[in-house]
């Protein structure tokens, strides 16, 4: 005789996870449409439109959520697994915007590279769904699942160019290392679970606040492994080595998407885990972040100096940018969080803009020629396109009146605010890195404005017919440039936006 004990089901607030549902539903729907309209010519345009609509719906839902959580406080649902707060919604908006850019950029690109396939759109949306999940995750297991949901489609997207071995090599490297690091991350979860008896972030915080651990080793090792796993995703040195290869090998729209959205999602997890679950251990994780930030800023900037490939240079520079954002995490204050959020927003658009130009400007048919020689004189031949790339790299360098300057100023300011010696040392390293970074950003700009010597390879680059900027890419470029400029000139609105979003 079995006693009919009632099963307590957790309350599910569908409203909280509506954007994620929208993206997943659209992604699955795309696969269905693909199957139904197999041989139809219209399949790609139809899928593209559906994907755009799905993203816009998700964006609309996020906008609704923003007002609700800002006014009424966070929504906690699904047995405390999901927590929708201003912080999550802010990064969700960044992610959806970056996904939209990745989608719009891909339309013409896929046709041009003869890769036309609606699967691309579906994978992109599913990855974005994983990222949204990551921003709202309030449980280490959810973080892990989100990490995999965002990563697995990305592995495929990176290797999407079946004809280009480098794309596949990049995909394979990303996959092997990604799987390796998520195993490390998972081990971290296991150890934290073993030490605290829970995987819920708020549960861990409550437990650590209420109990003094007799033996901290398990917890600390677990925390360290969590940081390693997330350090991999944000591309912090020394877990960065996949970044240049993957960014270079991946199809350029995917690179843009990764640089902007993956970074935002991974930093969402970093910020949430260290600040909500382990505030008591800030003296233990802050030194680790200090070292990661310092190394990332220096290695990223220095290694970018000697590259001969524009796409790869931008990849290394993204490592340096991860270092800057880590400074904001390191600051462990609401000011630092605000600065990190703002920087994630502005970096997303600077990176998308730069990679969008790279996508259009590379000569030759197969998205492989990105050496400095291939870009020589671009701004002379095509002033608007070249000028945009110069603008985006100068913004990344942090030239005043661009969003990059405002972002850097906020980040450095947040570190300066803490005011201890080690903070100042990190600040000096950051400024030094920014100064070094100036050199290679200017090298790119300089390459674009100098006319090529009459070298045969360069002459060949000249002879190829310039590629037209299609409408969708034009929209992305205009949007990214406008935002980069507006944040630089009138940052007030955006700083307030980020300040509203610091609340967990």
């Amino acid at each position: 005789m079995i006693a009919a004990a009632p099963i307590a089901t957790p309350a599910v607030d569908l409203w909280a996870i509506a954007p994620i549902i929208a993206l997943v539903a659209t992604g699955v729907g795309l696969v269905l449409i693909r199957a139904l309209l197999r041989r139809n010519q219209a399949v790609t345009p139809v899928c593209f439109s559906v994907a755009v609509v799905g993203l816009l719906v998700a964006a609309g839902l996020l906008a609704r959520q923003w007002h609700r959580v800002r006014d009424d406080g966070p929504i906690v649902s699904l047995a405390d697994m999901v927590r929708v707060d201003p912080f999550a919604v802010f990064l969700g908006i960044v992610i959806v915007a970056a996904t939209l850019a990745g989608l719009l950029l891909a339309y013409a690109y896929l046709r041009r590279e003869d890769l036309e396939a609606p699967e691309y759109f579906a994978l992109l949306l599913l990855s974005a769904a994983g990222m949204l999940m990551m921003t709202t995750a309030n449980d280490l297991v959810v973080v892990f699942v989100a990490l995999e949901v965002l990563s697995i489609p990305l592995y495929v997207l990176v290797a999407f160019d079946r004809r280009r071995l480098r794309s596949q090599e990049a995909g394979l490297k990303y996959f092997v290392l990604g799987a390796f690091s998520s195993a490390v991350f998972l081990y971290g979860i296991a150890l934290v679970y073993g030490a605290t008896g829970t995987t819920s972030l708020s549960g861990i915080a409550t437990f650590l606040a209420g109990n003094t651990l007799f033996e901290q080793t398990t917890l600390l090792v677990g925390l360290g492994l969590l940081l390693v796993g997330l350090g991999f995703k944000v591309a912090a040195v020394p877990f960065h080595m996949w970044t240049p290869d993957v960014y270079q090998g991946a199809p350029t729209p995917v690179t843009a998407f990764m640089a902007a959205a993956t970074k935002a999602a991974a930093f969402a997890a970093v910020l949430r885990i260290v600040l909500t679950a382990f505030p008591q251990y800030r003296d233990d994780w802050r030194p680790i972040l200090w070292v990661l930030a310092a190394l990332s800023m220096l290695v990223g900037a220095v290694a970018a100096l000697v590259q001969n490939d524009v796409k790869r240079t931008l990849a290394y520079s993204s490592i340096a940018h991860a270092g800057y954002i880590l400074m904001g995490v390191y600051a462990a204050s609401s000011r630092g969080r605000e600065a990190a959020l703002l920087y994630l927003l502005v970096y997303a658009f600077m990176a998308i803009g730069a990679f969008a130009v790279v996508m259009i400007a590379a000569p030759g048919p197969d998205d492989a020629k990105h050496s400095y020689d291939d870009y020589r004189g671009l701004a002379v031949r095509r002033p608007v396109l070249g000028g945009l790339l110069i603008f985006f790299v100068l913004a990344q360098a942090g030239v005043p009146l661009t969003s990059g300057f405002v972002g850097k100023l906020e980040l450095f300011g947040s570190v300066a605010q803490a005011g201890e010696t080690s903070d100042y040392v990190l600040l000096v390293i950051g400024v030094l890195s920014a100064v070094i970074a100036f050199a290679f950003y200017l090298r790119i700009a300089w390459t674009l404005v100098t006319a090529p010597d009459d070298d045969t390879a360069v002459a060949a680059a000249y002879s190829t017919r310039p590629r037209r900027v299609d409408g969708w890419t034009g929209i992305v470029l205009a949007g990214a440039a406008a935002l980069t400029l507006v944040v630089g000139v009138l940052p007030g609105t955006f700083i307030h936006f980020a300040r509203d979003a610091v609340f967990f």
Partner: protein
Amino acid sequence: MNARDILDYLGIIPLLPLAGAVILLLAGRRIGEPRAGWLATGMMALAFLGSVVALFALLSLPADGRLQVNQVFTWIPAGTFSVGMGTQADPLSVTWLLLVTGVGLCIHLYSIAYMHGDPLFSRFFAYLNLFAASMLILVVADNLLMTFLGWEGVGLCSYLLISFWYRRNDAATAGKKAFVTNRVGDVGFLLAMFLIIATYGTLEYTAMAPAAEIISAGTATAIALLLMVGAMGKSAQLPLHLWLTDAMEGPTPVSALIHAATMVTAGVFLMCRAYPFLEVSHDASVVIMWIGAITALLAGTVAVVQPDIKRALAYSTISQLGYMFLAIGVGGYEAAVFMVLCHAFYKGCLFLGAGSVIHGNGDNQDMRIMGRYRKFLPVTAFAMVIAWLAIAGIPPFAGFWAKDEILVEAYAHGDYGVWIVGTVAALLTAVYMTRLIFLTFFGNARYEAADAAPAVPVVSGGSDEGDPADADGHDGDEDPFEDHPTVVFGEPPRPSRLHGHRPHESPVLMLVPILVLAGLSAVGGLLNLPFGKLDFLHQFLEPVFEGAKGVKATTAQKLTAEGLSVLMALIGVSIALLVYRRGLRSPDRDPLVDRLRPVSTLTGNAYYWDAGVTRFVGGPGERGASWLNRVFDARIIDGAVNGTAWLFQWAGRAASRVQDGYVRRYALGILLGTVAVLGFVLLWAGR
């Protein structure tokens, strides 16, 4: 509309040249050659007019109320601290406005003729206007961050203009050198800003003076010294002076505008704005004072033996900037500003005159093959002689009053060490300027003797030829971009490039600005005569430096310091006259250089200072010296610049060599990182 309302519109002044720059960058090619120049010049004229209006508006206010800050909008709101975009009208900013727009106007006008025929004519004026706009933003800003914005802007324009003839290899390298050196200074500036934000949460100038009193002397010293590092970069103080002489690769009007009259004074401006910190921190003042004094002396010794007219003027500029820093260090802020103004007049005149000489004798910059040019360039010679008397410190020309005020302040302040150094530097100033003037305009004519090339028939003898970028009138098929006009010390004189022509005077459009500046050099002293109530500039600026602990010099002190410095000037002029009265016996024998060997070799290659002096004391003779000459220039100086670059390149290569493509290696990287993190948490954390 009352005066304060007018001053609220100060922000319009930088916008005028900015608009000019934007128009020229967008449609410069369509506007075409003469009109682009006139457009830019017109914008500068309007800006100058605006500055004059601002001056009168400011003068109509009571002396202690001459401060009008207008917050246009909040630029960056960040927590408790926010940065606005605003303008600050006070005597200091208006003085600089007049300087930048006035001298800028002269130089724009001059450039119309000087750049005639250059393929990038309109772009040159776009850059000039952009530079003026940045400089004006720097000056009118009401907070450090906005000043920094202008600061970066002038740095960028300087880079663009130095390497304007970018196909010339030296020009591109020089541009880069200027850029790198200025970045070093920028690190100081940025750190100072962060320190100021962290200490009391504002960057506004009006908030600094009261705030400086409440912070500790240590913090004030740190802030002042960091700002000083920034100022040293822009104002070419030792040891960040390297870039200025190389910057002479740019077109001569650029040298005049940026590297003599305006941009290099930005450092002085910054130090004036930061005076509250200097008042609190005695240590920082002493450091600045000595850096200025040493720079003034050492740059002077280098200028004495330079064969290249522009390089000699460049070292002279460094030396004069040293005076300004010296003045700031001893608390003579008004004296420093006075010096900035007078220096802009006479050095602007000298550079423009040098440009006229270069223009008129086939792009030759080597003074050893000039001589007796007063016959051919009478107007230029007249103007430059006035400027010479001014800079040499001969009363009653402008330089005398400015330099003497600084020396009097140093003497009265009790800093006899710097006073002596400054007085010796005054002697050197007289020597090198007299040498420059006599080698160029007087003595024997040497251009014919040096003209080894056979005379060619006159192609076009008109006065509008000989544009440096397009010197087809002189050089035939030689590519002007491959040209290396700069003559370094120790280089034998080259054949004259006149090819049988005679040097010729420049067009009127170039002469007018030269004469205007010469006139100002003559009468500039009237701005601030040290008699009773005639020190107008002093009275005008005094409210800005409220609370500065200046020293009132007694009459006896004044007479001592002034008398000695006039004596020094006369001695210097006499020495140079004695040596160069008749010019040079032969272009490759410079008596001063020959007689003073090996000292002249030492100073000729300026860079022994840094690392060479200790090695040189070991006593090798001339051969050793010239060996050092080569090695040090190549290894140490270029080494210092290239070495930094090389270090980072090496580090970058090391970092990317690790990235060898093996995925296993990458996994190893992750694992090693993990081990390091775990090692840290196990051994150190959790305590």
